[in-house]
């Protein structure tokens, strides 16, 4: 538990779920989310950039080999479910997978460790897992949503897209129903995308916090299985987010 020693369990939990903020009202920034997500993303991109710069078609080094493994994995997924040509979709999928995975991975760091270190520096609220912040998951899913709209219009044209909204699935005589269904369908995509990731990671983090409430000698009995299970969860969630993005974007590319 942190240096100040919260009075009771619920205070401890609430303390752990409070962001480090700056600003007021809507213009509030979650500094911890911004900081960790940016640092992790930049770290990954830095490594990738090094690998890309030194990329050789000869015998690859260890870093290049690892990055190529990821790229090959993502590329296979994209080719399997996206039948078209796009400069954007594969790099987008790679970015999502690696970034989400790294942010999820922060969940495996002991829940009290980084807040404790931050406490020494005078920072008293810190949430280290950016994907437990709805702002982040929605930021990603809304960006994907905007790309979906953009590509729908780009590929099918504004008229084609409008037709799809108005005349599917029941033909032109059921126009309002069509529109309603379609709007719900389209908005369900980013919302489910964001909430799924958020929900999984939030629940995971909460359980880690609850486990941290146990006496120190008993923590490993639950903490170890949950952490091992969580390795699967964080990878799976990153994969699902990437996969669904590919599927949604490929749907945006297809004429119905």
């Amino acid at each position, binding site marked *: 538990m942190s240096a100040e020693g919260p009075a009771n369990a619920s205070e401890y939990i609430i303390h752990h779920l409070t962001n480090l903020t700056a600003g007021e009202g*809507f213009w509030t920034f979650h500094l911890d989310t911004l900081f960790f997500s940016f640092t992790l*993303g930049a770290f990954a991109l830095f490594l*990738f950039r090094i690998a890309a710069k030194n990329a*050789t*078609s*000869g015998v690859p080094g260890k870093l290049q080999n690892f*990055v190529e493994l990821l790229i090959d994995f993502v590329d296979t997924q994209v080719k399997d479910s996206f039948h078209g040509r796009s400069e954007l979709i594969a790099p987008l999928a790679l970015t999502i997978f690696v970034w989400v995975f790294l942010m999820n991975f922060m969940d495996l760091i002991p829940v009290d460790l980084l807040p404790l270190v931050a406490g020494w520096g005078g920072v008293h609220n810190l949430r280290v897992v950016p994907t437990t912040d709805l702002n982040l998951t929605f*930021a*990603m899913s809304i960006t994907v949503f905007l790309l979906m709209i953009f590509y729908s219009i780009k590929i099918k044209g504004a008229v084609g897209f409008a037709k799809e909204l108005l005349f599917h699935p029941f033909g032109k005589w059921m126009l309002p129903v069509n529109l309603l269904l379609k709007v719900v369908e389209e908005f369900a995509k980013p919302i489910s995308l964001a909430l799924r990731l958020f929900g999984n990671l939030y629940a995971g983090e909460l359980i880690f916090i609850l486990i941290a409430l146990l006496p120190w000698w008993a923590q490993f009995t639950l903490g170890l299985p949950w952490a091992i299970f969580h390795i699967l969860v964080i990878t799976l969630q990153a994969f699902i987010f990437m996969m669904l993005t590919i599927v949604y974007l490929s749907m945006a590319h297809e004429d119905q």
Partner: protein
Amino acid sequence: MNINATLLGQMITFGLFIWFTMKFVWPLLITAMAERESKIADGLAAAERGHHEKELAEERAKQLLHETKDKAREMIAQSQKRADEIVDAAKDEARHEGERLKIAARAEIDQEITQAKESLRKEVVSIALVGAEQVLLREVDAAAHEEVLSKLVEQF
């Protein structure tokens, strides 16, 4: 938990990350991978081709060896034949030469025989003359019988 401006910040960050990956990471690596893939494919194809060529070359070498053996055998037979011919010709020539030498020797011998006969005859005549002289010196006057004697000599 509430939605706030963090959302915008994250969207900007996300957008930048996507842009960076798309611009500076993905193309380079995917190109290198594609190149390596084609290199490996080329290498495999080349190996296959090399294997095939080796088989062909072996076939050709076998054939060449066979042909060369045939040719060598032919050449040996030819040279044998030629050698036989040369030996035969030499034998012929030797026989001719021998005969020629024999004829020449015979001619020489005949000539010498003739010469010997001639000189013998002359010697016999002179011996006869000397004998006759001795006889005649006692009974015949040389001058008186000159005519008869010269006629005798002439008769020989």
